[in-house]
């Protein structure tokens, strides 16, 4: 059994070298990703505190956050170098979050008139 294990082990070592699936990410890539994330954090704070973007404020902030999220997932979480199935899983969860919040907002919109017409006291005491 031990020899078989050793053989399997050896063959897998070979597989690692061939496919590079489990190769460690280079340090410069990790550090540069972190630098980009810090830069984007600075940018979003700068835009939010120094400018009045009005209606664009939320989309811009969410856009920057999404770029950061993609960087974290693609590089720090190895999704860019991992089995595509893991990306499919997490993207699937985002799809359902989108449906959940989207439908909830649509439903909320349907009752906008009725809710706005009532006072907060009514809403809170029920």
């Amino acid at each position, binding site marked *: 059994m031990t020899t078989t*294990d050793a053989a399997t082990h050896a063959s897998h070592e070979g597989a690692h070298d061939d496919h590079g699936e489990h190769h460690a990410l280079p340090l410069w890539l990790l550090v540069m990703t972190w630098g980009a994330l810090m830069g984007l954090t600075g940018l979003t704070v700068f835009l939010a505190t120094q400018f009045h973007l009005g209606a664009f404020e939320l989309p811009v902030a969410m856009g920057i956050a999404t770029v950061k999220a993609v960087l*974290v*997932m693609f590089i*720090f979480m190895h999704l860019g170098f991992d089995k595509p199935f893991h990306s499919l899983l997490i993207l699937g969860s985002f799809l359902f*979050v989108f449906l959940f919040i989207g439908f909830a907002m649509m439903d909320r919109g349907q009752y906008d008139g009725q809710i706005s017409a009532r006072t907060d006291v009514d809403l809170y005491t029920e």
Partner: protein
Amino acid sequence: MSDAHGHPDKPFLQHHFEDEEHQFDAGKLGIWAFLVTEVLFFSGLFCAYAIYRGMHPEVFTYASRALDTKWGAINTCVLLFSSLTAAWAVRNAQLGQKKLLVANLALTIACAFGFMGIKYVEYTHKFHLNIYPGVEASEYLEGSFPAPKAEKVAYDVGVQAGAGEAAEGDHAEGDHANGDHGDDHALVKWNDPNIDPRVKDRLKTFFGIYYCMTGLHGIHVLLGIVVFFWLLLRAFKSHFTPTYYGPVDYGALYWHLVDLIWIYLFPLLYLIN
């Protein structure tokens, strides 16, 4: 027969897996499935946020001034750095660099404590202003809090809004002035008689969401500390090898997700103008 499935030379390879690759892949699928449930778990709070902000955007704009952008930004940087050290730790484990692995795991834990420390400062500040999660908040929101408290709230929010009238206030709060400098918002007073009472009444909605979202996120950070202490202990014992580093990878993935959620929480709560 049972011995035939054992792996005596690999102490951490469970008998029901063919080899380390098999075990690693199974664990990786498991952690990703868990992260999916985490995303869905948090989505309920994001949904509540979206609906209440859609209903009362002015309340979010107003109440957000009670949050200090400076602390939020610092905490974002602390978490991003801890994500770097966590990703680096995975690399160390893959390459069998024990000392660096221990150092990076320890740094990640230190950052997690730093994050919670800053959260403690922020929460304490709010408790000081009588802003509590839950029903107690209503007392303060109804305006029945004592006058000095009202002055203090007005002072802090006023300073955040960039007003200069607070110069006579206590110096300990002076650093808040740096949070929003150059802002030409009108002075906002929480005890302002001109404020729409309905806005005041709705403030508890914002702080309820604030406490739920940051609180749940904070619980995840605390759990991350436990996980990383466990990893640190195992790294000390030299458990991890280039062919057995799954737990480090899974722990780091969890930590990155906690970071990911904060990446969205920070602009949603702190950066509202």
